[in-house]
């Protein structure tokens, strides 16, 4: 044991030295008053690194771009990157470090809902600002968070409506499959209520939850196969998150379930996830997002080109949370310019009604409930791993913080301007 303590002693001494070096360099940077600091709070190691590293790089690219254009308010913009290591409590600690020690003006970060829930009290206590770029379950609106990803009514509900339509195959039987945590559970609760309001019976809905990183899908896929052979058109609505998707789709392909028999529509599978997969057996399965890399617009082409050049890899793909980061970042820049300061309260007021061009065409607008109005796209997976749009909303869909399909939240309003000034209340505060 003696030896170990000695090792540990050496180790902690080493970290102290390292921390000292880092700590010294940080104040040196803040000492200059002509720097605006942007915090980046994305996991660079652990389970979520697969998804979040891309978003860190996106913010770095956007910052780099902004500096090339002369910075913001005549100052240089500097990104401060920390690694919360897919560890939810560490997210809160790192958020505090960013705000209190590094004194950043805004933070871009988080992917999973549990990490967002973990940092929420910190942002509210210290009155800072977080841009959250991932599709999520809704049922939340914080004064200190801007949600640039899709709320359920901008992703899940339109996808289900599409499958119910004649073009989508007139689906009558539904499997709601998800990973066992807050996002799938809340989304499925909303979807179940929605399906029932459309007259779908209890016996035509199957709900299934699996643990994070589930890899043995044999039983569930054969259950889905059985459920789908009841004489009615069946579809799977998947809120399966992260790594578990790859073995799930592999098993689907191997058991011979193709999209014309039982289509799977996924809310967490984008181009990035498909990059690790042989997509030939998956052609025709669906994904619902607000952005696909395959959409042909001038903005998107420019963005993809810039991204590939920045990352130095011709094969890298872009995805929806990247677009959400792009919109959020540009909105923040515009709001700062309009307010003439990075003061959180002033920028917040300037955010409302802020407009940024979507990469897929049209304009995204920030609402007073801190959610965006954006178009919704539904696409089918192609052989080359891209997702091609098969359906899209004509106009913008306004993100609902509180779902209309859950009775207790249908009553709530989120509006951070006068007279409501709250994230979820039945009557105006003033």
């Amino acid at each position, binding site marked *: *044991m003696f030896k170990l303590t000695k090792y540990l002693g050496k180790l902690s001494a080493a970290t102290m030295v390292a921390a000292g070096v880092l700590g010294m360099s940080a104040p040196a940077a803040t000492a200059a008053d002509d720097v605006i600091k942007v915090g980046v709070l994305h996991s660079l190691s652990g389970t979520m690194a697969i998804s979040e*590293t891309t978003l860190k790089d996106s913010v770095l690219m956007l910052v780099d771009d902004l500096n090339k254009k002369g910075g913001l308010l005549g100052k240089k913009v500097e990104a401060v990157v920390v690694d919360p290591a897919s560890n939810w409590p560490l997210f809160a600690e790192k958020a505090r470090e960013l705000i209190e020690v590094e004194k950043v003006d805004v933070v871009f970060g988080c992917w999973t809902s549990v990490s967002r829930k973990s940092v929420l009290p910190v942002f509210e206590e210290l009155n800072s600002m977080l841009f959250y770029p991932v599709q999520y379950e809704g049922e939340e609106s914080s004064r200190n968070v801007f949600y640039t990803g899709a709320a359920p009514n901008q992703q899940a509900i339109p996808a289900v409506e599409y499958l119910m339509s004649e073009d989508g195959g007139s689906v009558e039987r539904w499997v709601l499959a998800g990973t066992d945590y807050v996002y799938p559970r809340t989304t499925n609760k909303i979807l179940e209520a929605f399906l029932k309001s459309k007259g779908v019976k209890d016996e035509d809905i199957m709900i299934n939850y699996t643990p994070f990183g589930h*890899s043995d899908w*044999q039983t569930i896929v054969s259950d889905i196969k059985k459920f789908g052979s009841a004489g009615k058109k069946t579809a799977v609505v998947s809120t399966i998150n992260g790594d578990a998707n790859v073995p799930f789709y592999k098993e689907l392909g191997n*058991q011979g379930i193709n999209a014309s028999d039982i289509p799977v529509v996924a809310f967490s599978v984008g181009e990035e996830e498909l990059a690790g997969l042989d997509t030939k057996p998956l052609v*025709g399965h669906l994904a619902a997002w607000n952005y696909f890399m395959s959409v042909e617009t001038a903005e998107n082409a420019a963005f993809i080109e810039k991204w590939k050049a920045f990352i130095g890899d011709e094969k890298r793909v872009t995805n929806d949370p990247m677009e959400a980061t792009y919109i959020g970042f540009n909105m923040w820049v515009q709001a700062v310019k309009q307010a003439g300061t990075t003061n959180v309260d002033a920028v917040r007021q300037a955010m409302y009604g802020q407009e940024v061009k979507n990469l897929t065409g049209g304009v995204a607008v920030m609402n007073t409930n801190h959610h965006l109005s954006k178009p919704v796209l539904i696409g089918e997976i192609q052989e080359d791993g891209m997702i*091609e749009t098969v359906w899209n909303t004509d106009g913008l869909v306004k993100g609902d913080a509180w779902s209309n399909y859950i009775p207790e939240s249908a009553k709530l309003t989120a509006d951070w301007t006068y007279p409501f000034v709250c994230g979820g209340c039945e009557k105006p505060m003033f």
Partner: protein
Amino acid sequence: MRTHTLIASVLLCFLAICTRPTPVSADSAGELVSGIAQKSFSKKAAAVEKLASSGNENAALILNALMQGNLYRVKTDSTRVVLVLSEEGSLKISDPVTGAEFPSLTKSDLKKIRINNKVRSAIKAGLGRLDLTHIDPDRRLSAAAAVFKSGDPTMLPVLEELLSKEQDEHVKSAFKIAVASLQLINGQDKKIRLKAVETLQDAGGQEVKGLLSKAALQLATEKSEGSAEIAKAVEKALASVDRQLATYGMVENLFQGLSLGSVLLLAAIGLAITFGVMGVINMAHGEMVMIGAYTTYVIQETCRLYMPGVLDYSLIVAIPLAFLVSGLFGILLERSVIRFLYGRPLETLLATWGISLILQQFVRTIFGPTNKEVSTPSWLSGAWEITSGLSVTYNRLAIIVFALLVLFFLMLVLKKTLFGLQMRAVTQNRMMARSMGVRSASVDALTFGLGSGVAGMAGVALSQIDNVSPNLGQAYIIDSFMVVVFGGVGNLWGTLVGAGSLGIVNKFLEPYSGAVLAKILVLVAIILFIQKRPRGLFALKGRSVEG
């Protein structure tokens, strides 16, 4: 090509005019094709159906092109459809019906005709219809399946005629089922429909069940001659098919349990050596598996670059190489860290845990955080259909066989080689072995290398069913320890029986309790079992145990 199609279409016109009541000219073929360019998917699907049943010579070619996404429509004229093929780097834009080329058009004038699942099913059904008379029996077989799925009543007379001429037994029975399905759903005659139900009942399987359920729903609202009687027959048939499927379900469940067991066995078998035999609590075991999977990836990519012809067999090459790479990492680990920590389990645990994190980040730095695609070779994709309704997937089957082979060879090494003898000697009584002239230090290193190498081979197999990502190993480390402890530390047979029984119990619980609860229940059961028998299923007896 151009003259060929021209002649063909002239011939076709001639034939059409002479033999068909509705004349199909090149003109109307053009009209049919332009229907595909409509915006609504339902209308597109209808146009596809029309084209397929038109008897046009080019229909198969056009439908295939649509399926592959090679059909475009001209932006300025929404009814004009063109075929775009890339030949030797340049684009060839032509008319799909006549084959005439349009050199003046460029890709920016065109918009791709998009298809969705509805259109895709219509194309499949249409191609199926065209394939019904194909010379290859396999094509006819899949054509029959496509007709069965589409349920298109107009196909009935064609199918009946083909059925009477068909020679191949397999195809014949597939045609029979397709005919019966159409007769049951769309027929009017009571006798024929009852007979169809019988045919379907004999065929059985998941798809027939779906069809019968659909028929039952339809019959409940139908008021034709004898519909009540038919409904009764359908109900009986459904019950019989259900019984058959339930039996198959049990077999399938057993197979899935064995398959999960074999995955557990593969993951744990290396640990059975490093932890079971050597007593090293190796938290970096999962990373050895991960390194094996990444080796597979590297070899596959190398093959893709230099020898695309043997890509399908890169997996086989990867097995020994993954063993070597992971084994070398293991030896390095043993020599540099673990040998200083023998006999201090707590410190070993912490040190190897740290090493596992270092290895993960190391791989993440080199290969990036995203998943890597290890494609499944064609000989491992798909499923083996034993009878209709009972099938097992090839990759799972291969993993079961592979796991047993690995176990067999490991046993062979332990029991029949000098190295195995020395290894057993060192673990049973180190001092005695040393005094007999065995170099215990090098035996330790090689043993650890062997265990790690076997873990690397497990990585090759796991690359087929799981993500190849830096976190691959973490998912298996807990399960591996569970299997080794449950099976009895230091006993390979125990590992086999432990993995198999855990897999089967898990799979039998899953349909009733759900995946999350099944895992918890198994864990609780193991904890209780260990309380009762701390040394696991097969406890080693002898001096080494007490030591």
